[in-house]
């Protein structure tokens, strides 16, 4: 078995036992990247040189007998909307084609403190807006399990490079499903943590109240390992960050014994619109849970049907304000066509720098915040959000976790939905409610469809329920054997 095929946990042990060096590992994953990246195109920037230097540094520390983190020397890819000092951070947008941040995101600082080797910046839908990775100004990313298909989005690059064996771990961000849906499409494990569990400082904002950084890996244990490294209260930099009860301890506390765990199946998530293959696969997973001793029963979450419009109103409203700073004045793209006219500088820089989907969301968000429409849209959406939160809180009185599909279908063909934004938005139906309610959600593979494309399932937990999700995920992973799936390329 080549190094690139191993999980982070396996590699961590090999590094600790000095069976391999961090440089050898880095060389192996970059060799894999060279072999497959032409087909996958999961990266916007590959940072081979700095990664090898970091790896050499880790080897030096280990040789000197320093006590190192379990992640020391492990390669990790970082989504291109997370600021890396001195390394291009483009958000896959022409608007930031040349942007090298003057500072590191908190998560990047944390990874550095764990001596992680950063392999590069992963592709995404521009400014994290999209569900297919097709809205990238760089290039589309291809699903490693079917190269003519999308990897999902917006963190499609992160999911694809993990699925392709280019890297064992990656960071993504999830505003309405942007970690979970690509994890599902690419057959890997992805976790969207509780809102506030991971600092957003340095994550280029799409919708501040919904955005959350989270880990990708090819096993539940690997995801727990990366989660442990990035969680933590960040009061000096992120006001919305919170202290969690599980900080840094989920991997150590993993427990696959889930006897008596109460698992709710919300009937609204299994209705029309969900493909038979997806429904059957997730219901089969429910049966597996029963056989493991869990109590599985149907529940109802009638308000989730409002989650999609609530999501598109709130996220677009916040995006319209968050993306206003890209005006061509201070950094990034500036139009050469404005002459001396300030207004032309703004409008042309923005019209030329932003892609169509981003412009659509900015227009939508500007509209719902406008005087005369605010009450009808934004205010009402916030009220509905409170109701949806209450509904989830009530559900968690009865069950420990909730099991649902992730997306209506498996990965679709590139170009098949780009002409109809509404159809694309509808694909987010199973994931957005988790962001609206600020809850954690774990996605992992539970089967394959007739075309051998991966099917994922979603476990939703209560606020700070990460440990329960990972325990339930591990139990299923062990029972199903669906772990460390690397696409044949």
């Amino acid at each position, binding site marked *: 078995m080549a190094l690139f095929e191993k999980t982070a946990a396996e590699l961590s042990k090999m590094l600790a036992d000095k069976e391999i060096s961090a440089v050898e590992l880095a060389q192996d994953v970059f060799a894999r990247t060279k072999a497959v990246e032409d087909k996958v195109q999961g990266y916007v920037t590959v940072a081979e040189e700095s990664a090898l230097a970091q790896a050499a540094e880790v080897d030096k520390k280990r040789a000197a007998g320093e006590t190192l983190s379990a992640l020391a020397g492990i390669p990790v890819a970082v989504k291109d909307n997370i600021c890396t000092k001195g390394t291009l951070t483009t958000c896959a947008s022409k608007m930031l084609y040349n942007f090298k941040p003057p500072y590191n*995101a908190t998560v990047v600082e944390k990874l550095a403190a764990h001596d992680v080797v950063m392999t590069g910046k992963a592709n995404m839908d521009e400014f994290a807006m999209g569900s297919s990775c097709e809205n990238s100004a760089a290039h589309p990313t291809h699903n490693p399990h079917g190269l003519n298909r999308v990897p999902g989005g917006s963190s499609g690059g992160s999911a694809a490079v993990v699925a392709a064996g280019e890297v064992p771990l990656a960071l993504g961000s999830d505003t309405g499903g942007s970690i979970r849906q690509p994890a599902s499409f690419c057959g890997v494990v992805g976790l969207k943590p509780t809102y506030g569990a991971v600092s957003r400082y340095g994550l280029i*904002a799409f919708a501040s109240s919904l955005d959350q950084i989270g880990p990708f890996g090819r096993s539940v244990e690997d995801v727990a390992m990366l989660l442990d490294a990035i969680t933590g209260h960040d009061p000096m930099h992120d006001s919305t960050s919170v202290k969690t009860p599980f900080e840094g301890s989920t991997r150590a506390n993993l427990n696959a014994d889930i006897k008596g765990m109460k698992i709710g199946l919300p009937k609204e998530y299994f209705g029309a619109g969900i493909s038979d293959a997806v429904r059957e696969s997730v219901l089969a997973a429910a049966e597996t849970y029963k056989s493991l001793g869990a109590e599985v029963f149907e529940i109802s979450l009638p308000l989730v049907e409002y989650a999609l419009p609530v999501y598109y109103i709130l996220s677009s409203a916040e995006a319209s*304000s968050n993306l206003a700073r890209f005006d061509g004045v201070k950094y990034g793209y500036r139009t050469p066509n404005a002459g001396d006219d300030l207004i032309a500088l703004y409008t042309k820089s923005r019209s030329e720098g932003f892609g169509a989907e981003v412009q659509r969301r900015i227009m939508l968000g500007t509209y719902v915040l406008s005087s005369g429409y605010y009450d009808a849209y934004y205010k009402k959406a916030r009220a509905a959000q409170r109701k949806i939160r209450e509904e989830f809180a009530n559900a968690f009185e009865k069950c420990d976790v909730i099991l649902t599909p992730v997306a209506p279908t498996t990965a679709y063909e590139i170009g098949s939905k780009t002409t109809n934004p509404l159809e694309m938005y509808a694909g987010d139906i199973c994931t957005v409610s988790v962001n609206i309610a600020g809850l954690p959600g774990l996605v992992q593979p539970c089967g394959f469809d007739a075309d051998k494309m991966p099917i994922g399932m979603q476990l939703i937990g209560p606020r700070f329920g990460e440990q329960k999700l990972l325990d339930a995920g591990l139990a299923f992973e062990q029972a199903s054997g669906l772990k460390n799936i690397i696409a044949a390329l």
Partner: protein
Amino acid sequence: MKYQAVIGLEVHAELSTKSKIYCSCSTSFGAPINTHTCPVCTGMPGALPVLNKQVVHYAAKMGLATGCTVNQLCKADRKNYFYPDLPKAYQISQFDVPICENGEVFFYVDGEKKSCRLERIHFEEDAGKLLHDEIDGTVVDFNRCGVPLIEMVTKPDLHSSAEAKEFLEMIKTTLSYLDICDCKMEEGSIRCDVNVSIRPEGSEEFGTRVEMKNINTFSGAVRAIDYEIARQIEVVENGGEIQQETRRWDDVKLKNTVMRTKEDAQDYRYFPDPDLIAVEISDEWMDQIKSEIPELPISRYERYLNEYGMTAMEARLLSDNFAKAELLDAAAKQVKPKAAANWILSDISKYLNDKGVELPDTKMTADKLVDLVKLIEAGTISGAAGKKVLPSMFETDETVEAIVERMGLKQVSDEGAILAIVQDVIAKNEKAVADFKAGKNVTGFLVGQCMKASKGQGNPQVINKLIAQELAKL
């Protein structure tokens, strides 16, 4: 027809916190451009704000001092607009739930007590500054960006430029009493926008309002208001109509010009800033803020008039300066207020002016002032000697007695010692004696000679008395 002006103000004051409102950059004025900046205050992608609690403290303090209700649960909102000095393209301000509401400020205009209600006080961040340069064109300095401000919005309760000026002076004095703003007008620490309308005298209805911006001094506010009232009256008298618009005041050309008409009114699309959490002021915190508020200027002014028997001018001069008022009130517990006030208004103020320092920067204390007054009252030193002692009182830690001793200023009141001097002076000044016998008044001359002979330490009253006594013997 006679008209009444209706005036409302929006006053911005920079708070004197050490660091900015949403990052840890310094707020100090005058640094080289773009040196007090970081990813947060330059609006770098991904950077996030964290509220400086001192801002909340200061804003609530101003609210309590102006009779406002403090909203112990409030929030920050985004005000969205594009301008090169605003790096995020939104200003973090407060919209529907400001930190303070419904206050009232009292002040005197020509001896008459007036009041103006405050609609609200909210906190917000300042924008950067555009610097226009012939070589580089326009550049942006973000040093000021993120400096905390409070905006105080009045009800339209003011009716003349004089009232507006006195209101502004009272706001400034209150800010300095609370020690929350350095009140340096030349550095833009306090700025105001003015809303003016006119209506026929006796009418209850409001006329169409015109907003004026770019007013940098209180005297500028007076000129701008007087100009705008006159302009509006002229428009109406000529059968015209006032347009709702924003006009820019030019304090050099002494006129205003249209900046924005009602049609260009911006939609700021306010909404709660999702990067920030609700601001909660606990009861304990409120108690702490309340305990820091001293007796306010208007109350001291009235007390100085009524209890200390001062003139309006004296009471105003003393109550306007917190340190002087504190000095006076502490001294007045032990000596006559008038005596202490006279020293503060004359020689103490003169010293501070000459040296260009503020009272708290010196070593002057109320105890020293009390000692000085008592030594003069007891005749231990003369008033003139008191003036000589004063500089050392500001500059050293010595007691007043020690200074007097060191400078040899103790007054001689012993009649035996002074009699010898008087007799000696009379003996040595035959011409004066001759003049006296010829009916001329020579007392002044002889007192002067005696003072000189006693090196200034002779008690002039005793000398006077003894000269009269000795001359009578001739």
